[in-house]
Each structure stands twice: as C-alpha cells, then as structure tokens.
C-alpha cells in the first residue's frame, strides 16, 4: 500500500438475506485518482457506491477514508464527500439556482461564498443560461448536469458518482467529462461507475472490473489490455460475460 492511499476497502461484503451482492472486496484508491467501476447490471456497483457514501451499511468489512471508517465515523467523513446518485435527486418544482441554493445552505455555505460557489458549479456543468428555469423544464442531460453540480458546491475532496452520464447526449457527456477532468486537476479524487466503456478508457486512471459482487481485475487501461491480451476493455468485459 502506497503513501497516497486515500480510500482503503477492507474485506467488504454486503448481503441481502441470502443474496451476496458484494463478496469480500479489498482494494485501495489513491488520492487525485479517477477510479472507474465497470460491470454489468446488478454487478454491485451502486451497492459499493452507497456504502462508500455512508448511505448503506456493509454486512462485513469496512472502508477507511483517510483512516476514518465509513461505518463508525461517517459524521467526520460526510463534509468531505460529494455524492451524485444514480437517480436524479433534485426538486423538480424549483429552479436550478434554487436547488443549488438549498444544497449550498445544507452544507453550511452562506453569503458571498455561497453565491460564488453556485456560479462556479453552474459554469462547470455549463448551465449558466438555464439556471433560473424550473428543473422539470430541463432536458434529461441538463438534469444530469445539475445533479452533478449539486455535489460540487462544498468543494469536497472526494467525488462519488453513480453513472453520471447515463442517458445523456454527446454534448452533455462531453461537458460532464470535461468537468471530471477539471476536478482531477484540482486534486479531487473521483470514483464513478459507467456503462460507457470509451468514457472509462478516456477518463480513468484505473478501472475495477466487477461482476457478481467480486472484483475480477483492477488496473490501468494498459495493464488490463496486457493481462487479458485484448485491445479494448469492451472485449475483456464481453469475455467475462461469456463465462
């Protein structure tokens, strides 16, 4: 384990009754890394993300963030987490800016700093012109982008995103990917899941291939290509699914 390890997953298991959703996961994520979770539907990606975001308790094992346990010290961790859920979690009857205003308040921001952060977040996801419109008048892609903007307001060190680009057009996807890259430059650690393999290859420092609750492989795109002797991550994934 390197000195840069920010997140340490230790023997993490999650069971729903007899169904094992996560099976003794152990790996680490480094600071300022973009870490991708790739796997078919039902692989357990969202479950892992929920545990990491302190939303859900593991059956066994733990995750340490900066040495703090997500199960026992969640209060200390929360301030430093930005969470983008798989579903759109916004007030549809409020405007974009009112949504941001609310969440900024929830994170204790006020006055000038709050205004500044809201503008910043809007510009990261390129929603400045539509900020005053009601969210239920937004397109799907715009909602996704606002969904991400909400998680940026309090400048968290760790950003956890569950399928941030699902159902989004090419332009919105580009905006989102640009935003992720910009955040990495600022030194943020980003963990995200996606079904778009090109996006993963393009963005991620490392990728974890996950299937049926266990990690099949972790590595950089190059490492995975070498291990499996395949050019494309997509092919590697298809190999798995065939088994």
């Amino acid at each position, binding site marked *: 384990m390197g000195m840069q390890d920010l997140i340490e997953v230790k023997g993490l298991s999650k069971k729903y009754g007899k169904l094992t959703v996560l099976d003794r996961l152990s790996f680490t994520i480094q600071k300022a890394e973009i870490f991708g979770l790739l796997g078919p539907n039902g692989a357990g990606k969202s479950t892992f993300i929920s545990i990491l*975001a*302190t*939303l*859900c*308790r593991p059956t066994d094992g733990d995750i340490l963030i900066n040495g703090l346990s997500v199960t026992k010290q969640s*209060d200390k961790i*929360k*301030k430093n*987490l930005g*969470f983008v*859920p798989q*579903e*759109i*979690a*916004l*007030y*549809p*009857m*409020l405007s974009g800016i009112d949504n941001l205003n*609310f*969440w*900024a*308040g*929830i*994170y*204790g*921001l*006020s006055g000038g700093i709050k205004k500044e952060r809201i503008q910043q977040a809007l510009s990261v996801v390129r929603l400045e012109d539509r900020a005053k419109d009601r969210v239920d008048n937004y397109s799907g892609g715009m909602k996704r982008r606002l969904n991400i903007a*909400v998680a940026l307001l309090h400048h968290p060190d760790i950003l956890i995103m569950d399928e941030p680009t699902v159902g989004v057009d090419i332009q919105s996807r580009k905006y989102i990917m640009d935003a992720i890259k910009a955040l990495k430059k600022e030194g943020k650690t980003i963990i995200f899941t996606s079904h778009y393999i090109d996006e993963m290859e393009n963005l991620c420092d490392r990728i974890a291939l996950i299937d049926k609750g266990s990690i099949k492989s972790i590595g950089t795109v190059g490492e995975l290509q070498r291990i499996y002797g395949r050019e494309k991550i997509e092919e590697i994934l298809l190999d798995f699914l065939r088994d």
Partner: protein
Amino acid sequence: MVAFIALLKNDAKLVLRDWKAIVLLLAMPFLFICLFTYALAPLLNKSSFMDPFNIALVDNEGTVQTRMLANQLDRLEIFKEVMRVDESEARQLLHENKIAAIIIIPAEFSNSVYWGRNKPVTVIGNKSMPLQSFVVKNVAQSAANLVSAGQSAINTIYHYNQKAGMSGEELQKEFSESTMKVLMETLSRNEMFSKVDDADNISVTPAEYFTASLMVIFLMFAGMPTMKMLVTEKSLHLTDRLRVSPIAAWQVIASKFMISIILSVVQFGLIIALTSTVFKNYWGGPVMRVLFLLCGIIFAVSSWSIFVSSIAKTSASADIIGNLGILIMAVVGGSIYPLSSMPEFVRDLSNFTINRWASEGFMIIFSGNDGLSVVNNFYALIVIGLAFLIISTAILKLRRY
C-alpha cells in the same frame, strides 16, 4: 445552524408554493363547522351534547327521605343508571371506569338537615371523566343549596316564632312541622333536580360541540402537507442526498415538525377567531389551558404525520394511509358518532386515538368551567404522540439498511 435554517426556509417555501392547498386547508374546517352546525344541530337535542352515564349512590342513611332523594336522581336523564351500592363496591366501579362519580349520603343526613347541622353529601368524581363528574358535582351542589336554603328558612321561622313570643312547646311543635314540611317539599319536588339539570348542564352549544369534534380532524389534516413532503423527498431520492450531507436525520424531521406546528397554530387561531365571532364559541377559559391542550394536540398530530410518512413509500400511498387513518381515528375517537353509543370495545379503543382526548379537552374549555383541567388530556396526547414517534423511528431505522 446555517444548514438547519436553509432546510427550514426551503420546507416553508415548498409548502407555500402550494398556496391553494393551504388556503383550502385553512378554510375547510370553518366551512365544515358551519355546515354541521346549521344542518345537523336542529336534529340534535341538548342532551346529545353530554351522553348519559352511570353513577353510584351510597346511601348510608337508608330512610324514606334519602330514598326519595335517590328517586329524584333516577329521574334525571343525564344519568343512565344510578347504582345503589355500598361504598367499597362504588369505589371498585369507579376504579373500573364504569361510573363517572359516587354520591355518598352520610348517615343521619336528614336528621342533620332537621337540626340545621352540616352533614354534607360527598361526591367523588372519576378523574378520567372530568366533564361527567363535574355535572354530578353540580347536581349535588345545587341540591345542597336548595336544602340549605330550606334550612335557613327553618331557622328564620324558628327565630321569628321565638321573637313573636311563642312558648316552648308550641315553638318546638311549630318548628318540627315546618322543618318536615320544608324537607319533604324540597325532596319531593320533581323539579329540584330537573331544574339543576337544565341550569347547570355543561353549557356547550351545537357550534361548540362540532368545533370540538371537527377541529381535531382538521388539525390532523394540517399535518398532511409536511408529511407528504417527507414522502416526496424520499421518492425523489432527495433523502439519500440529505443522508450523505452533514445534516442529521432528526433535523430534517424537526424542520417539517416546525412547519406543521406553524400551520396548526395558524389554523387554530383562525378557528378561534371565526367561531368566537360567528358562533360566540366560548374561548374565554384560562389561556394556559387552551395552550396546554393545543401543545398536546399539535405534538400528537405532528407525530402522527411523521408516522404516516415513515410507512408510506409514495406520495399517493401517503395520501391513502393518511386519510384512512384520520377517518378511522375520527370514527373510533368519537368525532363522528358519540362514543357512548358505541360498543364497549370501541370505547376502550378510543383511548388510543388523538380525537377522543382532544375533543374532550375542547369540550372542557367550552364548558367555561375553570375548575376543570385538561392535564389528563394533555398527558394522554403526549403519550400517543411519543408512541407514534418511537414506532416511526424504529421503522426508519429498519428501512435504512
């Protein structure tokens, strides 16, 4: 603190966005009270406002006079049955909540009247039936007043006769006669108690009766908008986001609680203002008593809302569960049909409803009697509220993982 204020502001904003619903919510109770009062009041006679109840009579004298007294009580419509029992049986009945009060006639009661001595009738009231025991106390008191008026008359006659220079034997004879006459007249007059009944029955008007029973229902409705907010938050996945944020779950609920308190207070204030001007409802009792009851009701109602939001998964199911729950509590709690006409198990069950304790509390306030207390009603409401809160916390905890 910044976070909690942001939460509260947002909740208030969301509730006020639906201002039509709020106006409807605030106007509805008054419309219903009007409707019920004008449409139904003529169908109800006055005794409906206090349903007949049982009392026990302990006659320690057992003479013709006291038996006449007992018969007088029998004739009062307000008493379903006047049970002739001994004192220990009476206390047992009181303990089992089968009677509202015990009237104890002391030994030598008639003689004491005869000799102008004071041997008072004792009334022991049932704490859980404050209104009823109040009526019994009043009946007994008025009877006592009549008797002592008779006593004074006797004394006056005695003194007058003495002053007039009557001789010893004549005086004694005249005195006995007049005493007997007064006593017999007092006791045999049918009107003695029926007058009491008319004059001192708790004066609750039809409007007050309907205000008491309907207000509770509408205060329960006042909890619905915030309750639905909690459910909507859940279905919009906002709850997940709130749980990841540093804000605590109790703060999210407390904010809704506060909004629902504000709504209830506004609604309560409006009802007081309107019913006191239009129907002249009696709201003049001690302010603390009204506040006390209001606190109890609001706590119970808000907890009820939290409870519904903890079991409902969608806004639609919250509506159904909420409305159905309010309806059931209204029926079981006697807000729709008088409890006294219900089977015994419903009456027992009613003790678990907000309505039963709240309506009774309002009736106590409207009765205008400062001697009655709503403390029991307050405690009952707090206990019901706590129960709802504890159950919801348990459900929310279970749901979480």
